């Protein structure tokens, strides 16, 4: 039922994969539900003693990454779209995450103190 018309203008483009795998309305609702649940869990654990656990930050980062990935894959339909877009997005994203990680190390945010 969901038909991707956005490819109609692309003259020499085979519309085959877009036809088959495009998400349904129901997918969008399910995704919204999952996103909401994760957000609720995130806020909930913020108010529990788990907040002082060593696993708190990793847990939050994992949930946040999951939300990030779900939105990108389903709402930005990167899961279904041309693989070029995946490259255009994940390449820069990886460099960005690498830079963030590098900076955190350099400013001692990961507390890796050896020597000096």
């Amino acid at each position: 039922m969901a038909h991707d018309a956005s490819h109609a203008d692309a003259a020499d483009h085979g519309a085959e994969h877009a036809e088959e795998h495009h998400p349904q309305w129901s997918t969008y609702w399910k995704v919204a539900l999952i996103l909401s649940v994760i957000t609720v869990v995130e806020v909930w654990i913020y108010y529990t003693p788990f907040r002082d656990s060593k696993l708190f930050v990793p847990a939050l980062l994992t949930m946040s990454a999951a939300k990030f990935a779900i939105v990108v894959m389903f709402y930005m339909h990167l899961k279904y779209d041309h693989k070029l877009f995946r490259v255009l997005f994940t390449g820069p994203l990886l460099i960005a995450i690498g830079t963030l990680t590098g900076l955190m190390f350099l400013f001692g945010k990961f507390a890796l103190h050896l020597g000096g």
Partner: protein
Amino acid sequence: MATAAIAESHSHGEVSHHRTSTGLNHRKVAVWAFIGSECMLFVSLISTYLIYKGRSVVGPYPHENWTDPATGKVFKEILNIPVTSASTFVLLMSSLAMVLALAAVQNKDKPMPTGWWDRQLRSSKLWLWMTALLGTTFLGFQAYEFTSFVHEGLTIRTNLFGSSFFTLTGFHGAHVTVGVLWLLALLGIDYKRGLKPADALNVDIAALYWHFVDVVWIAIFTLIYLIK
């Protein structure tokens, strides 16, 4: 630049004599490249916030109370998690509205279903309005947050936390504002001549931008608000 790239618009991508080597639309390629670039912008802003976290010489602080040694005045931890959780939820729901708007435009020429709810799902105007309103609500939350912080004694000039916090969230807010204006422009077209499946690409591109601004907030909410 995004707007300028988008401004290379209507007659270009859709004109049939312009074949493209990948079959992809120019503007959509450009917007994905733009989003990749924005990743680096927000990573710079987020990194700066995180680097400066805990380094302010005076309060108020995000997660701790602070007593001004000069006046003895106590400043409470300033981040308001319940309010921000609500605004985060609003922004997430706006993304849902946005995909529904896109789906509605893509399916404009299908026979109209009979069920009331299914008919609502076909209304691009409804979902575009919904997205814009949810986006505006998010901005309202942010305006509330900013003004209450100022009342509590935190401005962009107060300390490192203030400078990096307001700049980061302010840049995000500016992106949401651009997104809302973009949605209003699409609504203007919808009212003037109706968005058709051939316009789906225009909505698609706006949606990509909108969702990206949403995922940035997902990162900000966790990294800035929830992690101490």
